[in-house]
């Protein structure tokens, strides 16, 4: 049972293929983080990552003052007091890890997302892949199977590609067929894998184009640990990516930070409950908004009532 005098907060990212849990103390220090791989939106996975994080921190559920969930299964967790979408939490976590970040690229198991962040660390725009798994962790997994190379070896192997091959970035199933055809033609696995990672990068570039390119760019999610994916993305973007030490936990960290807000500055928390009256008062989001002030010269919000 959670108590308001407890000393810790918890963020749980209940993702499509993995679950991540982060525990912070009241000062915002990370005291534990755990990742569990349990397959599609698995309650077991979430439980395992939470139990592991509690154990790491040497505490029990009773020491958790507030828990916030995010990710695909965010509403399925009874322990969570509140949930936010992965867009909001990933942006929060990534900005915490890289405070001047303006663009967050997150490639996870089932989806990829690109989030533009404004100077206040707030999301201004985002784009997510549609139903197709092309350009996500799933895409890499399927192709690892086709090439018969363990997932974690794919990246390093792809980095040794010599011949320039190309495969389609539009559909995971088509890409798999193309990979099999290239192998049947006698192409080297290394070169085929080079093409696979280039396809992920070009697919992601399409998402980036939807929100607009800006720097610095942080990459989070499991695919950020894949050297070849990072390399090809840097190539197509023409800029360096910043990769936090634990790129997979950004969402859970963001959720934990929201939980922390709620116990340390309740005034700013519970946005949902307060927001409508405030927005009505500010008439924000309308072109005639009387509250508007000129934007600072270095701020260019793409949209959103934003920074006036």
């Amino acid at each position: 049972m959670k108590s308001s005098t407890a000393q810790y907060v918890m963020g749980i990212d209940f993702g499509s293929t993995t679950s991540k849990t982060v525990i912070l103390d009241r000062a915002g220090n990370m005291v534990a983080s755990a990742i569990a791989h349990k397959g599609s939106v698995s309650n077991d996975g979430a439980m395992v990552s939470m139990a592991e994080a509690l154990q790491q921190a040497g505490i029990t559920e009773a020491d958790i003052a507030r828990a916030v969930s995010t990710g695909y299964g965010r509403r399925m967790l009874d322990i969570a007091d509140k949930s936010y979408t992965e867009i909001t939490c990933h942006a929060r976590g990534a900005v915490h890890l890289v405070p001047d970040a303006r663009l967050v690229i997150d490639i996870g198991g089932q989806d990829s997302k690109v989030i533009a962040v404004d100077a206040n660390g707030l999301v201004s725009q985002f784009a997510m892949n549609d139903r197709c798994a092309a350009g996500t962790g799933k895409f890499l997994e399927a192709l690892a199977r086709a090439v018969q190379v363990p997932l974690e070896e794919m990246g390093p192997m792809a980095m040794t590609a010599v011949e320039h091959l190309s495969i389609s970035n539009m559909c995971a199933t088509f890409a798999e067929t193309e990979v099999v055809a290239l192998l049947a033609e006698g192409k080297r696995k290394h070169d085929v894998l080079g093409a696979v990672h280039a396809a992920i990068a070009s697919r992601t570039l399409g998402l980036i184009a939807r929100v607009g390119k800006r720097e610095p760019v942080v990459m989070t999610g499991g695919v950020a640990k894949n050297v070849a994916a990072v390399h090809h993305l840097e190539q197509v973007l023409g800029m360096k990516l910043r990769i936090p030490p634990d790129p997979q936990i950004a969402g859970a960290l963001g959720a934990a930070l929201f939980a922390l807000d709620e116990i340390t500055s309740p005034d700013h928390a519970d946005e949902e409950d307060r927001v409508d009256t405030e927005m009505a008062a500010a008439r924000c989001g309308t072109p005639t908004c009387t509250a508007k002030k000129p934007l600072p010269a270095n701020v260019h919000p793409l949209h959103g009532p934003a920074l006036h």
Partner: protein
Amino acid sequence: MSRDAIFSAFEHAAEQPLESARAWKQAHGTPVVGSFPMHFPGELAHAAGCLPVILQESQEPITVGHGMIYPFYCGYTRSVVDQACKGDYDFLDAIMFGDHCVQVLGAADVVRAKLPNTRVHFYQLISSMSDPWSLGRARETFLLLREGLEEMIGHPIADDAIHASIQLFNQNRALLRRLYDLRRAGTANITAKQMQLAVKSSMVMDKASHNALLQQLLDELESSSDRQQRGVRVYLSGHFCQAPKLGVLDLIEDCGGIVVDDDLYHGTRYISTDVSEQGDPISALAEWYLARNLKVPCPTRVDQNADWENYLLKAMENSNAQGMIVLMAKFCEPHMYYYPEIKEAFERHNMPHLLIETEHELTALEGLRTRIESFLEVVKRQANAQARRVAA
């Protein structure tokens, strides 16, 4: 009738439009005239003693129609072709096709080929709206439509009959607009689904019956006041020929959005403009055709005096909306042409908006939920941050 009973009557007609039209025909012996959506003046068919029915996208999976039309046509045209192939339109006495986009032309060809025994009247409305000859050409087209209908019923349609139909249709539009006013003002909590059912049923039901139901509904709504809803005020834009899926509308509200206004065809676009009840009725219809494009600009028309993005910015201001969700039917070319300008204008004005591409085949809504929730979170958090800055 209670509010719920009225909405279920709307739902029955809106969700089974062909069945309800067939039942009306059987009960009243009225010929049924099907039409494509967007620009057909139902008043003329009504004045000819027919029941005008705007052909709707069906929720059925597209099967036999697949072989007759490209998969990269919009869901509306593919569904209409599929319905024609399945024999769903066999009971129609006539079909009036306009040519508001290339895809609709392709669909019209297939439907015509599939229904050799049905009277098909094809009309071409001038699409350039601000030329000196636009009004005259629109009038000529409506005259031809009148003649086509007269040929079908075997006698002339009197001007008085057209005037009476115009009056009835104006009443219908005015009643629906009152419903919108109540929602915009927040005195009646009408969901996006209910609003769609109210408008869509008007496209397929007998207008006098629809007016009677609307009047009852308004009497009830105007005599009471609902509790003010909480959430992000959302404006819906887009979707022309087909009604947005009800699941998508429910999802937006389920995620914490309150739909306060729209420019949907199954919404304000359909009811925006009245026809003059004076003078030559055909000229009045031609004037209506040009005027409504200035009221709610249509991407299938070319009009130097109409500017969709400015219209949307203004409409959001009028309804005090905080964010706009654009619903774009996949492969809808007219919408795709205009969207970049809307996106640019909204970004320039710092107005939050989210694009959702919809498909006939769209069934799994969970992926959409994350995008909609994220969007509403963005709007809320940005607005909160601004409110704090204003307070500081």
